[in-house]
């Protein structure tokens, strides 16, 4: 689910186009966009606090073979939510599951990882380390 939600829409479209037979489906809940409150914890362990609201699009669909797929993606792309839900449903079908797991999920995860690594590299190149003179306010020093 996370992989499908984080994948680029173009990559998902490519994967969808690569399917031999495009399944037909009915909406259980048509795509809708809303806000969710994102919570964070200071340092990962502190008290939870509200970071802010994020736009999320969600949908639920049922394929003709009876699998129910759910898509929750960040942003307003209804098509992205639809494709995520569709792949979620297809991944539950016994005959497609193994193939899609390698062809789609692992490939998308790889693409995402590469994109993340490239972005981190770019950021890393401009990283600035701050050095301060110890002035005695750090109790551990």
């Amino acid at each position, binding site marked *: 689910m996370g992989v499908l939600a984080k994948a680029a829409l173009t990559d998902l479209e490519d994967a969808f186009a690569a399917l031999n037979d495009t399944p037909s489906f009915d909406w*259980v*809940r*048509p795509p809708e966009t809303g806000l969710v409150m994102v919570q964070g914890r200071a340092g990962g362990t502190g008290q939870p606090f509200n970071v802010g609201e994020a736009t999320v699009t969600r949908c639920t669909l049922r394929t003709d073979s009876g699998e129910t797929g759910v898509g929750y993606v960040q942003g307003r792309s209804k098509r992205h939510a639809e494709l995520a839900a569709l792949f979620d449903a297809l991944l539950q079908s016994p005959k497609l599951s193994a193939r899609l797991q390698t062809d789609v999920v692992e490939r998308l995860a790889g693409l995402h990882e590469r994109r993340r690594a490239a972005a981190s590299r770019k950021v890393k190149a401009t990283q600035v380390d701050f050095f301060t003179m110890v002035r005695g306010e750090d109790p551990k020093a």
Partner: protein
Amino acid sequence: MTALQNVGAGFADPVFSAQSVFRLVLDAMAQSGRIAAVPDAASAPAGLDVASTAVALTLFDYETPLWLDPALRGVEAETYLRFHCGCPLVEDTQTAAFGLVTAPRYMPRLGEFSIGSDQYPDTSATLVIQTGGLADEGPIRLTGPGIKDSASVAIDGLPDWFWPDWDVNHGCFPTGIDLIFTSGNRVMCLPRSIKVEV
């Protein structure tokens, strides 16, 4: 996940369907005794009629605690309402903003639901009661605001204590609960301001 596999579809067009059903319920509430028909827009789960489902999808949401008829708990209808309406389910009739009743003969007495307070009469409960049948003509005579002279209706399957309880509820005005009767695709409303003679 297994529960989700059986959830039927909600409104195909959530915004416009909910708006049109809301308008219809509003009109029905303003003109008590008049029976309105809801368009068949959602696939109702087992145990719920088309009208009950449409009213539920329109009115219930995460801010309205729902008291659900024991006949519907733990079955498809409960999953359906949780999924599409996102409403919290409560056991306590006093905290419920809505009640959904499908077996009126065994329902709690009307006085058990919240009637609101004099300061906030709008915080009272609204009951959606799915009945065996609704008819334009019948032994029940309604008078009050929104009705010219009087209206007569028939409602099937209500318990014996129902109309005496309603008199008490009517006497509580401006507090009191409101009722939405459904049957098949038909809806009839009974606000607290209406006097009923049987």
